[in-house]
């Protein structure tokens, strides 16, 4: 039996090979992939790359333009902007990973409940999703900050809560479609339990598109973190964040443009990188999704 199978099976490219091949064949996808790799590497190796301590003041003249000593210049108290941008990247990636991870798992649980549970639960959850979606992210974030105070954890919580409805809705639709799919019905007819159907069949079918969507949401998360930090309601000042750098730059905007430029360019690069990579991945794995969006 097994011999027959090996004889028939063709050499299948692995998932990784297929992904890389697809990305290489797509120009913006390649750019996106390299941008994302660069950003992640910069965030991971930040402590080793950064030439100065990001919090050290007077490492050089105040508000200096870029030079060999300070690649991106210095801010109003002489901190090295390149080191601060790197440290800010670490914070941004941490927030993105934590918030999207929480949103995905919560969305998965709620979406499956809505999609496979009884009708009244479905309606109730849908109403809850719609209500949550009707808060503007930043306004909701500010309301939460007013209640619990600004911190890294608050930012993560705000982003997670506001993104849950999006994922939950998608999972709900997918779960409903899969519930009536023939292979699931066959499995149930053969006596499979609901958990088995859920974890072995529904989850793998839903997870791929979901992860791609999540990667495309990274820019949104980072803009929210930077935005809240810019308003002084996110990451607290001793910790550098792109939003904090931008706020410092805004306060001294008439003296030097460099802090604003240093704080904003990484945000734009992250957005471009993750959007390009996500779009390419989506096209490789699920051409149908392209139209739905």
């Amino acid at each position, binding site marked *: 039996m097994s011999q027959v199978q090996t004889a028939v099976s063709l050499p299948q490219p692995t998932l990784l090979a297929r992904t890389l091949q697809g990305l290489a064949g797509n120009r913006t996808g390649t750019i996106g992939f390299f941008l994302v790799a660069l950003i992640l590497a910069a965030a991971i190796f930040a402590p080793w790359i950064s030439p100065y301590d990001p919090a050290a003041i007077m490492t050089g003249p105040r508000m200096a333009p870029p030079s060999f000593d300070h690649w991106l210049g210095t801010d109003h108290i002489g901190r090295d902007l390149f080191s601060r941008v790197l440290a800010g990247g670490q914070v941004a990636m941490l927030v993105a990973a934590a918030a999207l991870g929480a949103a995905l798992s919560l969305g998965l649980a709620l979406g499956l409940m809505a999609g496979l549970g009884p009708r009244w639960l479905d309606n109730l959850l849908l109403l809850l999703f719609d209500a949550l979606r009707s808060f503007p992210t930043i306004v*909701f974030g500010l309301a939460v900050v*007013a209640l619990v*105070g600004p911190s890294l954890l608050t930012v993560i919580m705000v982003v997670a809560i506001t993104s849950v409805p999006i994922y939950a809705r998608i999972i709900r639709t997918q779960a409903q479609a899969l519930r009536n799919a023939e292979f699931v019905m066959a499995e149930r007819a053969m006596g499979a339990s609901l958990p088995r159907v859920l974890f072995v069949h529904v989850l793998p079918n839903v997870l791929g598109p979901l992860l791609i969507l999540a990667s495309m949401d990274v820019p949104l998360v980072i803009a929210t973190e930077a935005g809240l930090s810019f308003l002084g309601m996110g990451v607290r000042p001793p910790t550098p964040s792109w939003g904090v750098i931008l706020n410092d730059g805004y306060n001294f905007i008439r003296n030097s443009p460099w802090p604003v430029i240093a704080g*904003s360019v990484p945000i734009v690069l992250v957005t471009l990188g993750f959007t390009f990579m996500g779009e390419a991945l989506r096209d490789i794995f699920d051409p149908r999704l392209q139209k739905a969006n």
Partner: protein
Amino acid sequence: MIYYAMQRFLLSVLIVIVAISALTLMLHVVPGDPATMMLGARATPELIEQTRVAMGLDQPLPVQIVTFFGRILQGNLGTDVFTGRDVSDIVFEQLPYTLVLIAVSILWSATLGIVLGCYSALRAGTWLDTLLGILSVGTISIPAFVMALYAVLIFAVSLDWLPAIGAGQGFFGGAVHLILPAFAIGISWVGYVARMVRASMLEVMGAPHVRMARSFGLTEARIVRVYILKIAVQPAVTLLGTGVAHLFSAAVFVEVIFARPGIGALIVSSVNERNYPVVLGAVLVTTAIIVLATLVSDLVVALLDPRQREAL
């Protein structure tokens, strides 16, 4: 159509109720007492107790929620604990500035976006189409508050062409002060709308009814206006409806950066003072407006396309 409108309206009311309940519940689930947080560590127990009673926090939770809804239905959003003014007065004083800002931003960006998207789709594949595509992706990638900072940097600081602070005096002053903020909010929407209109135009242009219209010998202008654009513009209308939430978020930053009055600036300053009644009132009004905008966009789409009325 009326049945559909009623259904959507009831759903919207329900959504607002759930959203309000979620917010009030949050106020109570969160550890720590709002009155203590608001007054700071040095407040005397008597003062804290007094504020608690003034805010109604000494009542049991269900009573608080019911009285809260009762007050809202009467148009009473509570009183500002610091100044003793009505929260609704404060909110509605600031609201027009934000609404004007959002309306101007959405008007110029949607108009330009639809025109550019339409143009791009009719000339798909030319260098102009490619250029517009790159420009849209570029503008979409820049968050509104970053755009606002660059607008200040370039047009107010470097070139010194336009004012960057405040809302201006009189109609002309107000209009001049609106240019940069409306530019900063609207620019990414030009890209969004253009891309969306382009994609749906291309899709509709291949539809059988368009080929039919062409075979009947209708003029190209009439085909585009009546048979293509009317359908192709729908995703953009939906996008703008749901986008009002994003516009409010953007307005928060733009009002802070340009030191303009408005509901976003109000929320930020009240959060800084931990002025809960004002924060809650402002968030409430914002949410209601957003739900209303979504409702309106759904109804506009239903008016444009009878097929949408059946799917709720």
